[in-house]
């Protein structure tokens, strides 16, 4: 359902299309052998090709092409058998060649779609217009000197996938869901690390507003939107700005605006105002990229199970709730962890432990599941001990805490600390007898009809047995002895 915004003159509908730039996971750049690692010394990851020295020529990275094919398939889009690298000509100091090698009328990936999950439980399809490969630009630093800008070309030439959506997005929540879903898919595929802080994923957000169902309005393009939160905030700001202008009888200027995360506002980019004429033409240093159907099919076979499929399988196979399933599939590493824990065990119990205990403590300590001190097989061991009544759920929490601290196996901890559940009736009976002997008043009261006291006796027995007594056995024996 479209989210509408109330203005002075009535309701407005927001129309959004996104261009997401995702840096391809690869060792080296799109057209050169320089490293793509983040955070190196200035101009240390620059080859003579990246610096556009005279006579330097591009050679395409095979792995990047495979990554693009994978991504195209992963976003349910058509992989084009022929694509062409074109030059996009413009001058900028962080663009050494004076052109960006990109793809124009023949991108490597064509139309497709992805599904986004909305808070109200509905699923919406967002159309993908295309995805193409292109070179990243370098970086200009403006705050190092009062009158100078400093240029670092380390990023120059890194491979980017530009994923362009249809204007199907209707508000900040959908936009956030879209970029989150895209990020999730790319991370599943291993084609982009989705690290928005480091700029491996950036969004340009095209926003316009219109009266519900009316003609499309003039759009503004917001650049430099670097987090899911910023996507939402920039849309909120921009929608309010546009509605105010329109309601005051003004017109929206088609322009490029910059999101300023410090001031929480978008502002016009003066330098980009000049009408662009990019003079695209096929790069004569590169020939068309031809892919065989066999090659595409072979890559298709290597695709991992994607988030949506996995979610449905978790619900069906493990009987999880949609909510639990979506928590578990949010990261491929998380889902893999869960599956290892759940294998041949109580899957629902496993889900509870992963979601409530493990993710809880990891979150608190800001840790990734890949660095969890308890490995999946170990947590599985703990679940097994619960399921076969070796320990109670309560003891299990203490064991879990110990495992987290030491990295030891559950069985070893249980053994070492003597936490095994006591199921021996004689032993339990002895404890019960002790408790009855110590609490004659309560025994009398219970027998006089105060049923609620039963819990008190259970508690006392458990306490005396340091939680090790099997609760079912305690219940049964207590009932017998007290009757």
């Amino acid at each position, binding site marked *: 359902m479209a989210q509408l915004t109330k203005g002075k003159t009535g309701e407005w509908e927001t129309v959004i299309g996104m261009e997401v730039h995702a840096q391809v996971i690869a060792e080296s750049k799109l057209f050169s052998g320089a490293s793509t690692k983040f955070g190196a010394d200035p101009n240390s990851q620059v080859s003579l090709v990246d610096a556009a020295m005279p006579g330097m020529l591009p050679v395409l990275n095979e792995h990047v092409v495979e990554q693009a094919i994978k991504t195209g398939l992963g976003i349910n889009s058509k992989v084009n058998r022929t694509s062409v690298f074109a*030059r996009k000509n413009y*001058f900028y100091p962080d663009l050494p060649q004076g052109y960006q090698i990109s793809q124009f009328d023949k991108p490597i990936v064509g139309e497709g779609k992805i599904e986004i999950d909305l808070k109200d439980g509905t699923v919406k399809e967002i159309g993908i217009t295309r995805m193409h490969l292109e070179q990243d630009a370098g970086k200009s630093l403006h705050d190092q000197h009062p009158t100078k800008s400093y240029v670092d070309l380390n990023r120059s030439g890194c491979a980017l996938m530009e994923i362009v959506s249809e204007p199907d997005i209707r508000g900040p929540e959908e936009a956030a869901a879209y970029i989150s879903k895209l990020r999730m898919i790319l991370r599943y595929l291993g084609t982009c690390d989705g690290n928005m802080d480091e700029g491996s994923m950036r969004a340009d957000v095209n926003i316009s507003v219109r009266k519900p169902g009316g003609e499309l309005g003039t759009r503004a393009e917001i650049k430099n939107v670097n987090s899911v939160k910023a996507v939402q905030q920039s849309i909120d700001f921009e929608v309010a700005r546009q509605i105010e202008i329109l309601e005051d009888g003004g017109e929206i200027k088609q322009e490029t605006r910059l999101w300023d995360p410090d001031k929480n506002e978008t502002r016009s980019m003066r330098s980009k105002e000049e009408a662009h*004429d990019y003079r695209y*033409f096929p790069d004569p240093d590169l020939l068309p990229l031809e892919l065989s159907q066999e090659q595409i099919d072979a890559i298709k076979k290597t695709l991992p199970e994607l988030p949506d499929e996995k979610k449905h399988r978790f619900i069906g196979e493990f009987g999880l709730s949609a909510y639990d399933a979506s928590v578990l599939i949010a990261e491929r590493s998380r889902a893999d962890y869960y599956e290892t824990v759940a294998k041949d065990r109580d899957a629902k119990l496993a889900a509870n432990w992963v979601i409530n205990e493990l993710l809880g403590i990891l979150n608190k300590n800001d840790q990734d599941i890949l660095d969890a001190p308890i490995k999946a097989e170990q947590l599985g061991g703990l679940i097994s001990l619960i399921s076969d009544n070796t320990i109670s759920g309560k003891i299990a929490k203490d064991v879990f805490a110990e495992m987290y601290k030491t990295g030891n196996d559950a069985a070893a901890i249980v053994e070492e600390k003597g936490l095994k559940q006591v199921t021996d009736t004689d032993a339990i009976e002895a404890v019960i007898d002790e408790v009855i002997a110590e609490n004659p008043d309560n025994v009398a009261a219970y027998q006089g009809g105060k049923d609620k006291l039963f819990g008190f006796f259970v508690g006392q027995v458990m306490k005396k047995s340091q939680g090790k007594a099997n609760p079912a056995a305690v219940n049964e024996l207590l009932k017998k002895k007290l009757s």
Partner: protein
Amino acid sequence: MTNLTHMSIADALKGLESKDFTAVELAQAHIDAVAAAKDLNAFVTETPEIALKQAKESDKRRSAGKAGALDGIPLAIKDLFCTKGVQTTASSHILEGFIPQYESTVTANLFADGAVMLGKTNLDEFAMGSSNTTSYFGNVVNPWKGADGKDLVPGGSSGGSAAIVAARGAMGATGTDTGGSIRQPASFCGIIGMKPTYGRCSRWGVVAFASSLDHPGPFARSVEDCALLLNSMAGHDPKDSTSAQRDVPDFAAALTGDIKGLKIGIPKEYHADGMSDEIEKLWQQGMDWLKESGAEAVEISLPHTKYSLPAYYIIAPAEASSNLARYDGVRYGLREDGEDLREMYENTRAAGFGDEVKRRIMIGTYALSAGYYDAYYIKAQKVRRLILEDFDKAFEQCDAILTPTTPSAAFPIGENEDDPIKMYLNDIFTVTANLAGIPALSVPAGLDANGLPLGLQIITKAWDEETAFKVGGVIEEKAGFTALPQTLAQKAA
């Protein structure tokens, strides 16, 4: 001792091997010849120290029995090839002082075979020209003189290379040919020049003019020498995505002289308007020589010839406008400051580029700009396909095509300057082979009435340089071209 600067490369290699002279002696003789030819302004940068150092090493290698295919041969390198540690300018102010930290593949190949570098030769700025008058470092003078002693152009853009080889200042040279820039100066200077198949010689490290048309290639004074040089220059280069993975044949071995039964195509459209009788006659003479040797003449048609130059003058400037965008004053080369960054760019490029380069950048920018792209750029590319198809069809009928190389002999410096189009027409016979990417060889075949050399061009199928060399060898032999530029002839006398 033999005149070391008048020998062929093939003979020099024999002389070096039999210790008639050393590489150092050979280099020194050429360094002296270069000094004597100073007036030609053939070099932007002379590198005698490098030549002597390389020659010394060459002599050592040869004594150790490790001499390469061109060991000790002094060559001139067009200043469009980036040479590690040696200024490379493309004859442009914008690259003045630029010292590459890398060696172009072609020059690296030559040096790996033992060649010796005498220096970097002057050219039309960014290889844009047919007269070598657009160089920031002054025009090159042809060693051949006009009837009245007038200074003539050496042709362009590889004018310095052609002039110095003709003046016996280098045994051979590298050039690049985008529309005729090897063959036209070869013809004007009375030497051999070969533009091989596109993809045969790597473009890596060669300052780009028009990427889809740029062809590195050799100059020499004999067809055999030219073949030897190409052998060394050619080969697959993984750094150039348009370099073909093909074996390099022994081109010199193709010079069998046996052209019996070969079909030689004569394109009827090449009888251009106003072609001089002299050239017409020379062309006929060339065909007669081939027939005498057992070849057969076939009339062929290349119907789109007329449109090759206009198509070229869209495609080449379009690519150039983009290729030359990197000269912005940020990372290397000239910088002219301005009020802001944009002004810095505009000032730098205004000061750094000469008029002809500016004209071509402007034409190319215009042809690619919104609203004109289809009408100019796409149209030119379609015409380019038709030109390629013309050749495909022609080669169903013949093995090689014979044409004049140029519509005239070398002209006086300053002529044709007022009218760019008149200058462009110099390449009318050569440019088609660039558009089609096929091999073409220019061989001096005679002198015009003023005693100036004229060349004939042999064009063959893609990857068939061997037939071009073979046919060229026959013309060379029949023509017996031994005339020397007047400057040298006088000295000799």
